[in-house]
């Protein structure tokens, strides 16, 4: 059958549009012609024999005649996935599920694909469906576990990994995945023990060794990390591990060797990865080679953008505008206060731009016996999504908060607050002695109004750092915060400005328990500022907070390695070496820099 290329469906399935995305499911021909079952068998056999060309041709023929044939759709999806056409595979799997919603295999495959392509919220929907469809299926639990672990909910992920391990014989991969999950929860020793079990069961999996190596690095056992990395590399020399290897070498005091590893990796036909370029930028920066460092940053960011990530500016601007319009003093005066007292450990919100020192502040605080570290909790932003449903509003956040004026929503803030606490406590390892826990999701200042409504007395620590230092640092990391603003210098600057202005607005419109804390002050005079910080939180001073680098907690964020070092001033005013490169944003940032009390 010859197909005019112009007729082909835009989704990339290789089918004609009229047999693919343009198809209305009610139009499906019924019954299917008789020859189809034989053709389907042939397709399956061809796939098994590795003859993907024949398999694909057979599927095409079947779907031309019977576009709703689930078997052929599933086979074709598998073929597309194998050839890297993920989006097309997703489209076909979703079609199968519209036709046969209970197809467990399709649900699982779809969840896996979505996870692979970083579409986490959709992946979570499918993975949860898989567990609903087959609560005793280990794969369903393992999939949900992976999604949740990737989505900053490792504690719930752990639950599902353990379910998976109970439902089936423990296997090396699930054990390694659980180990990685525990590493993310800073439970390095438990993770290490699981990796040991995993490599006994499956010693030849590259990712297991790499994960173990990363775990040892997080646990500061750099020698072991190098050893396990070498094992992993032997198993699959073609996998790009140069970024990690270089980071490890740099941490071990061998920057030249690290750069050599990165340069060697750059020679591969596909060129360097964005991770490798950004690692190179960080090493060059520390070596005092800003021009080369910035060039690597730009190159790395360009690759990230090529992969489809970019600042969702329209969305960010829209939400910012709506928040500023909603949170105004006369309106807030009419809102109820939470009626009941919250129980248990209470949140401390550490807000600020990524790379401004939020991890450092959390590391200091969580060295205190009364404070648990919550790390980057996704709870607040999840709550803004769930909020309209919880308040029974037809509007989105923040306008949905208007329901709080209704007589039957007078306890609405109590509900929102308790839901926040319920979800947060699932994610934060809170012990009996903990009175407070930290939530340090960067750019959470966006939701300062909601925070103050739910937790009128919750301390908000706003970590400030010279905005140009923040921008240089954001340029040297792959960050998703702030609507992916860090994919480009200009967009990072614009988003930082949006947040600075929004914070000013909140502070003008409502009373807040708000403490601005300068990163530079912490570096310059640690003790008085730690005392000030603790007093602001109503907890007594504790010397352990001054030795935060001994805090064995592993922070999940980009700063994890830095906060295991004593404070140093090398990161202060680093921007000065980059002024030439920052030129495109200087005029834009200057007023905000002065407002924050800094100079250029």
């Amino acid at each position, binding site marked *: 059958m010859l197909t005019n290329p112009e007729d082909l469906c835009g989704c990339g399935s290789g089918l004609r549009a009229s047999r693919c995305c343009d198809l209305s499911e009610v139009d499906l021909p019924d019954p299917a012609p008789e020859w189809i079952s034989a053709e389907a068998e042939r397709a399956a056999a061809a796939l098994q024999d590795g003859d993907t060309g024949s398999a694909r041709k057979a599927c095409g023929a079947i779907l031309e005649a019977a576009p709703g044939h689930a078997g052929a759709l599933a086979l074709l999806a598998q073929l597309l996935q194998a050839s890297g056409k993920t989006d097309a595979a997703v489209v076909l799997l979703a079609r199968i599920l519209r036709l046969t919603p209970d197809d467990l295999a399709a649900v699982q495959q779809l969840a896996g694909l979505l996870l692979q392509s970083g579409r986490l919220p959709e992946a979570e929907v499918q993975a949860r469906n898989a567990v609903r469809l087959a609560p005793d299926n280990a794969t369903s639990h393992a999939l949900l576990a992976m999604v949740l672990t990737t989505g900053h909910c490792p504690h719930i992920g752990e639950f599902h990994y353990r379910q998976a391990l109970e439902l089936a014989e423990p296997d090396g991969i699930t054990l390694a995945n659980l180990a990685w999950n525990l590493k993310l929860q800073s439970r390095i020793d438990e993770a290490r023990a699981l990796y040991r079990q995993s490599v006994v069961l499956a010693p030849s999996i590259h990712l297991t060794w790499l994960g173990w190596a990363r775990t040892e690095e997080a646990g500061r056992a750099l020698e072991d990390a190098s050893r396990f990395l070498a094992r992993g590399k032997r198993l699959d020399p073609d996998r790009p591990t140069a970024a990690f290897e270089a980071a490890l070498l740099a941490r071990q005091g061998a920057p030249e060797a690290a750069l050599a590893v990165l340069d060697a990796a750059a020679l591969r036909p596909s060129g360097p990865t964005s991770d490798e370029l950004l690692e190179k930028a960080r090493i060059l920066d520390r070596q005092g080679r800003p021009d080369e460092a910035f060039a690597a940053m730009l190159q790395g960011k360009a690759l990230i953008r090529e992969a489809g990530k970019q600042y969702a500016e329209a969305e960010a601007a829209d939400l910012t505008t709506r928040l500023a319009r909603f949170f105004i*003093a006369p309106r807030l005066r009419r809102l109820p206060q939470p009626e009941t007292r919250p129980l248990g450990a209470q949140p401390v919100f550490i807000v600020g731009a990524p790379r401004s020192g939020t991890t450092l502040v959390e590391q200091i605080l969580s060295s205190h016996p009364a404070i648990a570290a919550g790390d980057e909790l996704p709870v607040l932003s999840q709550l803004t999504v769930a909020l309209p449903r919880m308040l029974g509003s037809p509007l989105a956040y923040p306008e949905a908060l208007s329901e709080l004026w209704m007589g039957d929503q007078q306890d609405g803030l109590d509900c929102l607050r308790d839901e926040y606490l319920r979800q947060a406590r699932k994610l934060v390892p809170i012990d009996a002695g903990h009175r407070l826990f930290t939530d340090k999701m960067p750019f959470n200042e966006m939701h300062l109004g909601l925070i103050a409504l739910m937790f009128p*007395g919750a*301390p908000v620590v706003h970590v*400030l750092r010279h905005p140009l230092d923040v921008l240089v640092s954001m340029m040297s990391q792959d960050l998703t915060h702030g609507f992916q603003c860090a994919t480009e210098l200009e967009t990072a600057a614009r988003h930082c400005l949006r947040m600075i202005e929004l914070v000013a607005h909140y502070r*003008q419109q*409502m009373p807040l*328990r708000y403490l*601005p804390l300068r990163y530079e002050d912490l570096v310059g005079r640690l003790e008085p500022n730690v*005392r000030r910080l603790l007093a602001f939180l109503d907890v007594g001073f504790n010397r352990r907070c001054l030795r935060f680098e001994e805090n064995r907690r592993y922070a999940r964020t980009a700063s994890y390695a830095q906060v295991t070092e004593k404070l140093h001033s090398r990161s202060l005013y680093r921007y000065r070496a980059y002024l030439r490169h920052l030129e495109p944003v200087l005029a834009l940032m200057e007023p905000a820099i002065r407002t924050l009390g800094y100079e250029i």
Partner: protein
Amino acid sequence: MTPPPMTTALRDLLSRAGVALNEGRPAGAEPALRHAIALEPAAAEALCLAGLAAHLAGRPDGAIRWFGRTVRLQPGNATAHSGLGEEFRRAGRLDEATRHGRLAAAIEPGDVNALHNLAITSYDRLEIGRSVACSRCALRLAPQMPGPHFELAEALLLSGRFEEGWDEYEWRFRLPGAPPPLPPHLLEARGTAPPPQWDGRPLPDGGRLLLVADQGFGDVIQFARYLPLVEALGPDLIVAASAEMVPILRQLVDEHRIHEDWGSLPDFQAWCALSGLPRLFGTTLETIPSATPYLDADPELAAWWKRRLDQLVPRRYRRIGLVWAGRPTHGNDHNRSLDLHRLAPLLDLDEVAFVSLQIGPAAMEIGRYFGRAPLINFGPEIADFDDTMAILRGLERLVSVDTAVAHLAGAMGVPVSLLLPFAPDWRWLLEQGDSPWYPVATLHRQTAPGCWDEPVREVAARLRAESRRRGAAQFPP
């Protein structure tokens, strides 16, 4: 130097500009003046009119430039010197203001405006003797001119010479643009013999006295202390006040006696402005009714705000109220208000939380404040003076510029540190660090015009010393 003869064209342009200026339309005068100056750049008369136009249009820099060029060409131009004096005074450049003011008065010894301006400049420089002398000179030339009477009142009251001061102070309602204490129609509606202004003597039996809560909110709070004294004289008292003042006044008179609406006033036999009571009671420095507190917060509201404070202020932190600006439409606001950042030495204290009671546009500065001490913005939640009093009740002290909130704290007996300009309002008197009106007040005065450094440093030092004493008391060595 004799001015060159004027051409007809120039004369026409200047007369057109003069007409517009007389009608108070500086924008209408400016095209003609521009044309005139283009024709004859050295025409002093045109330059002087351009200065006046800029002055009337609210462009002080322009006014100073034009008047300056005028006096360079025509050193004997009294109008230009007088204009320069006034502009420099407003800009706080008091030395230059005095120099030009004196020149104007010397050139035209009969110019009452020049003398009046010089009186004001002298007041601003705290040269009170000279200010009084200038006002008296002006009054000899124009005995019925309200401005010099009022300026004389301020200078006399400031120096504690209340007796003559109160009499002169009665001229305040005759100042150009000053609203009358009673709407004229109210008296006119009461026929050919409208109720007279009260003379302070008891009224005939059943006589009803109307008191008008006039001037600013601070004045009402300050003079509300006279209400019980008036009531003791036995008249059937009613008070006319704006709604904002009701939370204050109802603590001193029954609420049913307070009227927010001129239309609802019953008949009355005499009337008096609240700010006229010190005169009627013959108040002297020694007899100021200084018993405080005479105002207090509603206990339930105070408890609600206390809970709010407990939520927002760390437990160990001291709670200090803060107001740094007054109503921007107040004539003297540029003098009495300051920018938040000027308070930096104060806001650098440890374990002190500042509770902002600031309202109005100045409260926006909080969004740009990043000092060490937490600054809690209660302004958005303050609905009325009931709230303000309830918040003050939960504070250890208020630090404030000369605004109504400072009066409120004083009247409630809440310690208040008052930041005063070099030449303060008359009620804060001269030099002293305390106030006979409010025993709980501590006054911190500018030592040079426009310079807040010293008073702010004083308040910071006081708070720091108190913190040290507390620290010592809490943690004995």
